[in-house]
């Protein structure tokens, strides 16, 4: 069972006939504790579901570690970027994505917004007893496609099975490494008053897609998650605006939380223009129905970049040429006045945009 090689790494496919190990086949329909027990059932699961999808030379013969050539890092930078993230989502599959895709893009994006070229990922899965094997296959297929899209290889991993109720279906933890080009030094401390804040696209779609997909609210929504790799967008931005100071992806807590973190981290204020913030019409409708504020909804393919004003137009033009950047917009700027995010409203007033407390709950009655 061969798979197409992932971009980004030279691949010599593993072959069963190499004679080192047999390739197991998993015939069970559901995962049981036996699949985490270390015996042949576990090996069948790993062979048939994971190796057959992810196989690449860095995996070697399933040693305890992946072995990566340092030259590949030194060729593209002078520092290693290293990150990890745990992924849980309910439901596992939602419009525009699934847990597998999130687990790859989430880690890729954490590397990408630091200016790094993402290269390798690890993948640890915690699986709840009773999960359908088919579900697992779909998640793995999705991870494989996402890794190919993002130009990374998944080179090492782990699988654990826990009893019913001890996890919610599947949890995935990925870690990732990449190389940061010499001379590039993005950081929150580089942010300066006068920098403009640029977002690459429409905000809030992921949070709304997940809320709708859960089904409790009985809403039919055409909104898809914005789940996507940001590497290409960030690279285009940095090429057009090489003096960019800082980039952060606006995941949990949405744009508002990201900007508050920057404001807290620098002591500078941020002044937003509500009319400039790109939102799709359906998202506005969704938020009106539930009394939600779109600035706090999660994103999985959106960033806020802090760019010197002189390079802002070039940055926008470059972003708009890349998929996922067509709606890029300048939404505000960094100010000297005390560390607070303030938004000029659509209606001409102004209000503070504060950090969110806990989870945003619908406001209905």
């Amino acid at each position, binding site marked *: 069972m061969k798979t197409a090689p992932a971009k980004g790494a030279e691949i010599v496919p593993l072959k069963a006939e190499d004679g080192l190990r047999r390739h197991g086949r998993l015939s069970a329909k559901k995962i049981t504790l036996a699949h985490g027990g270390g015996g042949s059932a576990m090996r069948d699961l790993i062979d048939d579901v994971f190796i057959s999808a992810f196989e690449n030379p860095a995996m070697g013969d399933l040693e305890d570690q992946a072995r990566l050539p340092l030259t590949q890092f030194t060729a593209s930078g002078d520092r290693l970027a290293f990150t990890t993230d745990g992924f849980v989502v309910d439901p596992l599959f939602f419009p525009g994505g699934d847990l597998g895709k999130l687990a790859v893009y989430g880690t890729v994006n954490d590397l990408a917004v630091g200016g790094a070229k993402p290269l390798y990922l690890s993948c640890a899965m915690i699986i709840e007893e009773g999960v359908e094997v088919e579900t697992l296959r779909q998640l793995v297929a999705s991870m494989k496609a996402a890794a190919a899209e993002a130009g990374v290889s998944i080179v090492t991993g782990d699988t654990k099975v826990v009893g019913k109720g001890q996890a919610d279906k599947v949890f995935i933890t990925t870690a990732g490494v990449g190389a940061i080009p010499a001379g590039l030094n993005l950081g929150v401390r580089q942010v300066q008053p006068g920098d403009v804040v640029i977002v690459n696209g429409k905000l809030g779609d992921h949070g709304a897609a997940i809320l709708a997909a859960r089904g*409790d*609210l*009985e*809403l039919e929504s055409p909104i898809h998650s914005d789940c996507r790799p940001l590497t290409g967008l960030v690279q285009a931005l940095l090429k057009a605006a090489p003096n960019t100071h800082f980039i952060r992806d606006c995941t949990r807590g949405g744009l508002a939380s990201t900007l508050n973190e920057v404001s807290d981290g620098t002591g500078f204020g941020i002044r937003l223009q509500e009319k400039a913030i790109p939102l799709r*019409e359906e998202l*506005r*409708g969704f938020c*009106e*129905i*539930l*009394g939600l504020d779109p600035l706090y909804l999660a994103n999985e393919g959106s960033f806020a970049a802090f760019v010197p004003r002189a390079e802002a137009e070039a940055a926008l033009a470059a972003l708009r040429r890349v998929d996922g950047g067509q709606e890029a917009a300048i939404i505000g700027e960094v100010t000297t006045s005390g560390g607070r995010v*303030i938004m*000029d*409203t*659509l*209606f*001409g*007033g*102004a*209000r*503070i945009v*504060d950090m969110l*407390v*806990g989870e945003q*709950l*619908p*406001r*209905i*009655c």
Partner: protein
Amino acid sequence: MKYADEFRDSALAAGLAKAIAEQLDALGATEETPVRIMEVCGGHTHAIFRYGLADLLPKSIEFLHGPGCPVCVLPRSRVDDCLAIAMKPNVIFATFGDAMRVPGSKGSLLQAKGDGADVRMVYSPLDALTLARRNPDKEVVFFALGFETTMPSTALTVLKAREEGITNFSLLVNHITIIPTLRAILDDPEMRIDGFIGPGHVTMIIGTEPYGFIASEYKKPLVVAGFEPLDLLQSLHMVLKQKVEQRCEIENQYARVVPNTGNAVARKAVEQVYETREHCEWRGLGDIEQSGVQFNAAFAAYDAEKKFAIHNASVPDPAECRCGDVLKGLAKPWQCPAFGKACTPEIPLGALMVSSEGSCAAYYQYSAVHNEALEEARNAKAS
């Protein structure tokens, strides 16, 4: 969005704000002696902050944020009742998201969920009925809170349950009525209110007639308002116009949605299912006579209070909490000793800090941008 975006046109705001400033000058209002207008409804409070309306208006107008947020006036004892039911085995407790974080004396529904209670957030009481249909071996309880706007929806849901013969479904009713509370506020000798912005969606059900006494007995103007920023500015203009012309009338700015006669079909459903509750406790305001409803005898089978033998034991508000004074407009949120210290949106002590419609949370999270007293209170917390 039709019927929303037209009423958010900032180009019209400047002219309206000018006209309002002229009226305030004509009335001799100043920052020290402002015209005080109470917006009754929490939805209006939310809109005022969301759009930053205070920034557009002169300081000679002061908004008093009224009691029309069902979550904000939910007494601690009622949240305790919710928890008592939600923690029972075999119960699915369904509620609007609004109620999840409201603190009772033993925690909130969100905390109960963390402790293993099966608490579900729904958008509609009909969705709670669907839960009952899908889980015939469970008892599904819906927490019916809200004003007159929401009563028809829960009444019709119960009628539907009866029609379908669904018996594993009941409601914990905490529906409250705005009229007796407005009278209580007007009777308070400390109150100084020059006029009211009336609750648009409540009026869509009850009509404009029940407000008549506010104009005839108390000589205050009231304008029923929509929820978009231009609706609010126009309503304010209408209230001030009455003041300038020395009239006191009940007017309706929100005629596109609110017929003056309200909705008779909806009222009929409410009357069929509910009866007036003799006493009703409001957080911060205390007991107000006949300010709520309960199931009538014919629908006792759907009454969760009876089904689960709940005895509503009153729990006093925390001593340092000044929610009542803030609700009545006697104190600004930041003048409460607990504001930003013992009481934050993260760990709310008083209900006004819970909902973004509550004036404390609104000030804390959105706030007016140029408010030095507020800044001071916030900074005191940080240091």
